[in-house]
Structure formats: C-alpha cells, structure tokens
C-alpha cells in the first residue's frame, strides 16, 4: 500500500483496502479454522465417524469482511461445522452437544481461558484479547436433498434443480425451535455456501479478470494459484465501503440496515462494472429497485431460498424500512458528492462516515501525487481538445 493516489477510484480502493481485514490476520483466521477442523477430524474425536468438515461462512466467505470501527473491537469469524448424519437419528440438541464437546475439548487443549459459549445456534470461542477475533461455530447436517424438495414444492423449480446453488444446503440447530429436543424433520435450513456461489456468479467475469491481472503482474504463476481472498472486485469493495458507512451512521442501533440486505441488494444491482466508481454509481442508483413489494410487505429475498425474506423484520419494526431508505439516501449523497469534487478534497461527511482514522492512513498517499496547478482556462482547453479529437459533444441549436 505505497502506491500514490491520483484519482477518485484509487482513493476509494485504498480506503476499502484500509478497512478490509489485514492479510496477516486473514491468514491467521484461516489457520484457526483449519486447526479446529483438524482437531474435529482426529481419530479420538467424538465426531470422527461423522466425517466433520469445517468452512467459513458469511462475510469471510464472500470477501466482504470489514474491520470493526473501533480498532480494539474483534472480528467475527463465522464457520460451519458440518457432520454426517440425519434428522431421523439425531435431535438438534444432540448435534449441538456432540459438536459442543469437541469445541470445549479444543478450547482447553489450546489454552483458551474462557469456556466456549453455548449460543442459540452457534458455539462461540473467545480467543485471548490479542487474537483480535472470536469464532462462531455453527453445527449443521447436510440437507441438500430436502432443501431441493422444499424449493420445488414452493414452485422454485429452476433453483431446486441448480446443483451449484443447492448442493451444500444445511439443516441447523436452534435452541428456540419447539422441537429442539425431539427427533423431527423440521429443522431450520441454511445455505451459506449456496449464497456464496450465487454471490460469486454476480461478479464472476470481473473476479476472473482480476485474477488474470495478478498473474500478468507476475504476483502468481497461474490463475489457479491465486487465493480467492487476494482478489477484491469492485462489488466487494463497494460493499465494504457501504457497510462501514452504515456502521458509523448507526453504531449499535438495532434499526440499522443489516449487512445481508446491503450485500444482497448490492450484488443484485452490480452489473460487472470494472472500477469502484462505476460500481458505486450503479449500486447506489439501483439497489432499492431490487426490493420487491407485495401489498404492504417488502421483500429482500434470499437468492438461493426465495422463501426467506431478509427484510422480514421490517413489518414488525417499520423504523427499519425507514432507516434503510434514510441510510441509502445518505450514502448516495456522500459518495456522489465526492465524485463531483477534486479527488483530494474529500468531503468531511464522507471522511466522518469512513472514519477519520482510516482517512489518516490513506491521505498521505494522496500527497505523493505531484500537485500540478492548472488554470481554469487550461482545464477548459483540455475539454475542447478532447471533444475536438473524439467528438460526441452535441451542438446547441436555436429553433
């Protein structure tokens, strides 16, 4: 991050980079979940026979993680622990406890002082303060078959037949489920890898293009060697900036727009733009058009499970719908005004939203660009030169 900044796009890319999780910490997080995964797979593990697999979900998987606003705060690392089994031989409670035993053993074997927390759906491991993150482990059973049946039964035939978007669907436990302690086949469903596959499809061309650029740039020998997390598309960058904008606007306010809504609507609006400026323009102009109306109910459907409405709380808490639109308006105004000013004259409102602290990390890179003072007439002449050469300025006419 020593590249000088000489336009709006480079500035916003650098800001997004500065709020992203540092590569070192990201690699450490990967080590952590690999380590817990290996622990679950050791021969003496109580779930060894059930062939446990662990993998990240949520913003880690999507590449849209952002640092908490206070640098002292921790990252959430959400991981899935999927074991082989079926809801006709296990209760939700039994699965939760089966995984819980291993999580607890892992914590004590690794000198983690705090005992893991038994949450509503996850186990939470709190690492020591210096580790900077905690891990939420979601026990789950594979559930692709029933998930597809469910989609088809609800009329989503095409989606139900889509292998990529459904093959990793899960059944998960929930302490507040009425049948938590009995054998039933009505577990909650979840599909984080399906969602990630959908998200990837929304940006696949740009993702591949950027991987090739890293290879051309000789940072990697081939496209296959580039780890996904080393590539950041304009969609991912835009989402990171929008989430940070939201975080500083709302803090812990429960009515704040939730990340999954921002992420889903952004990915739906994005149409392959190759830089963060064009991406923000399209996303901020179009994202609210992807909210569906049915009577008085608003829908932000989960693209891999249209029966799930990410905006389902808006009916009960109308303030949340109102706040979504208030936030969107503010984000439109803040980012749009930046593009209408010189790139190194960032509006104070935008600095405040992306935090002064982050801005201070990035702004020295703007000073590196040699300032060339151009007179207004020279600027106007450059416009004329460009128009003369390329045409495309329509001519006024008096009728």
């Amino acid at each position, binding site marked *: 991050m020593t590249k000088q900044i000489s336009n*709006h796009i480079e500035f916003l890319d650098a800001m997004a980079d500065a709020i992203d999780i540092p590569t070192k910490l990201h690699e450490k997080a990967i080590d952590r979940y690999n380590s817990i995964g290996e622990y679950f797979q050791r021969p003496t593990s109580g779930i060894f026979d059930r062939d446990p697999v662990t993998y990240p979900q949520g913003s880690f998987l999507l590449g849209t993680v952002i640092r908490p606003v206070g640098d002292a705060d921790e990252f959430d690392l959400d991981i899935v622990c999927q074991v082989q089994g079926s809801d006709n031989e296990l209760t939700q409670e039994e699965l939760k406890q089966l995984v819980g035993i291993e999580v607890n053993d892992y914590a004590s074997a690794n000198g983690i002082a705090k005992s893991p927390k038994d949450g509503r759906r996850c186990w939470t491991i709190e690492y020591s303060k210096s580790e900077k993150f905690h891990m939420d482990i979601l026990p789950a059973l594979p559930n692709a078959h029933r998930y597809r049946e469910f989609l088809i039964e609800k009329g989503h035939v095409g989606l139900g037949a889509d292998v990529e978007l459904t093959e990793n669907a899960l059944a998960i436990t929930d302490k507040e489920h009425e049948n938590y302690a009995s054998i039933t086949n009505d577990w909650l469903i979840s599909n984080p890898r399906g969602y990630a596959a959908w998200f990837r499809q929304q940006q696949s061309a740009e993702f591949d293009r950027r991987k090739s650029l890293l290879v051309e740039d000789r940072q990697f020998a081939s496209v296959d060697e580039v780890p996904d997390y080393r590539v950041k598309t304009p969609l991912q960058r835009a989402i990171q900036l929008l989430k940070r904008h939201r975080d500083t606007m709302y803090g812990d306010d429960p009515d704040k727009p939730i990340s999954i809504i921002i992420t889903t609507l952004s990915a739906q609006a994005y149409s392959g733009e190759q830089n963060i400026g064009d991406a923000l323009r399209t996303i901020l*102009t179009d994202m609210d058009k992807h909210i569906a109306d049915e009577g008085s109910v608003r829908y932000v459907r989960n693209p891999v499970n249209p029966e799930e409405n990410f905006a389902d709380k808006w009916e009960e808490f109308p303030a949340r719908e109102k706040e979504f639109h208030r936030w969107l308006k503010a984000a439109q105004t803040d980012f749009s005004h930046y593009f*209408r000013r010189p790139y190194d004259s960032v509006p104070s409102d935008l600095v405040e939203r992306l935090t002064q602290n982050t801005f201070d990390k990035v702004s020295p890179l703007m000073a590196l660009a040699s300032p060339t003072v151009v007179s207004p*007439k020279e600027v106007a002449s450059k416009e*004329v*030169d460009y128009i*003369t050469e390329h045409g495309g*300025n329509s001519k*006024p006419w008096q*009728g």
Partner: protein
Amino acid sequence: MARLAKLTIEEIRDEVLSLIAFDQPDLNIIELSDDKVEISGRLFVMPKSPENQPLGALDQFEVRIVIPIGFPAIEPLVFETGGRIERELDYHVNPNGSCCYSVWPAWLADAKDQSISEVVSGPIMDFFRWQYVRLNGIDAATAIGERQHYISGLLDAYAEVLDCSPTQKSVSSHLKVLRRKWLRSRWRCPCGSRKKIGVCCETNLRKIKGRVSPEIAEIMQEKLNSQSR
C-alpha cells in the same frame, strides 16, 4: 425496431429519481403533476476528458428542467435560472432563460437509450459544458461548434442523421421514405438519382432505418414543418 417508450408520469418520476440518486445529487423534484415532472437545483457539469476526471465537476449551473408527459417523444424544457448565461440568441438561451440545447429528434435517433439520465448526461450536460467553455474565455462556437439558427441548423442536424445533403428537398424525401413502415426496393431512391432504391442506396437506407423509426421520422417531419412556417 423498438418504438419510443410511452411512459406514465410515475415512470417518468422513477427515471428522475434514478438521475438524482447519484449522477445529479443536487437536483430535486419540485413539482409532480399529471402532465409533468419538474426538477430544479444545481446541475453538475462533469468532464469528458479523462485527464480532467480527477478534478471532479467542471462547473455547476442553477437550472430548472421540466419533463412533460409524452417524453421521450416530447423534449424536456431546460431553463438556466442562475443568470450566469446572457439571454442571447448567440448563446442559445431565450429571453425567458429556456435553453436551446439540441435538435431533439436528431438525439432521439442517435441515443443508445432514451432515458432521462441519458438526456441529462448527454445533450443537456453537453449544452452546459459548451457554456462552461465559453465562460472560460474560449470561443465555444468555433472550438466545439454550434448549429446555425432556425431551419438551416435543423437541416444540418437532420442531414447528419440521414446521411444526406442538408437541403429541404433531400431531407424531406428521405423522411418521406423513412416514415413508411417498410422500405420497398422498387420505390424511387430519395437521394435524387432517379433510380430505384434497390439498385441505389438500399443498404445505407436500411441501416438508417434501423435508427430512425417511422415514429422518429414523423417527429422529425413535424419539427421541420413547424420551422418551415
């Protein structure tokens, strides 16, 4: 060939909302009635030259824009309200502040989509970029160009779209052909060669017909009629 959209006033409003969401954040809807959407505020003029992009907006003008029901067949009216442009024919502003920003039907034929965002970022912003250049001491009429007043400027603009000579006769005979639903090879060619279209300009005419639908040709003809009176 796509027909011009017939937008409801709500659809026009939605297009305006898309425009002011990001591209023109300092414009606001000031009136919404059954027959028009009116917006006003500051219009940002953005650079065309990539070299100027890091500077952000080149300039801003106070404007009022009226988009009538019937858009895009009917053009939006644009007024400069800040008094920065002299109300003179030479600067293409009428005494009431209304701006003669383009030959509308020619834009209809050329535009890749006829949305309000395209109009504003296209001919309307071009008009104010022209004014900005002029206000910075450059003779924009010479440097960028302008249309001559009244019918001769109109014929020039049409001739570019129709790829014909800028005479009333040539333009009219081309429009006559283009206003028909189909192009027949046996018709006399509008270029004046006295040959049949099929053995003369057919290829070129079909290409032009791809952009100038009968509907647009009709709008062009009406404007020509009103200027000829």
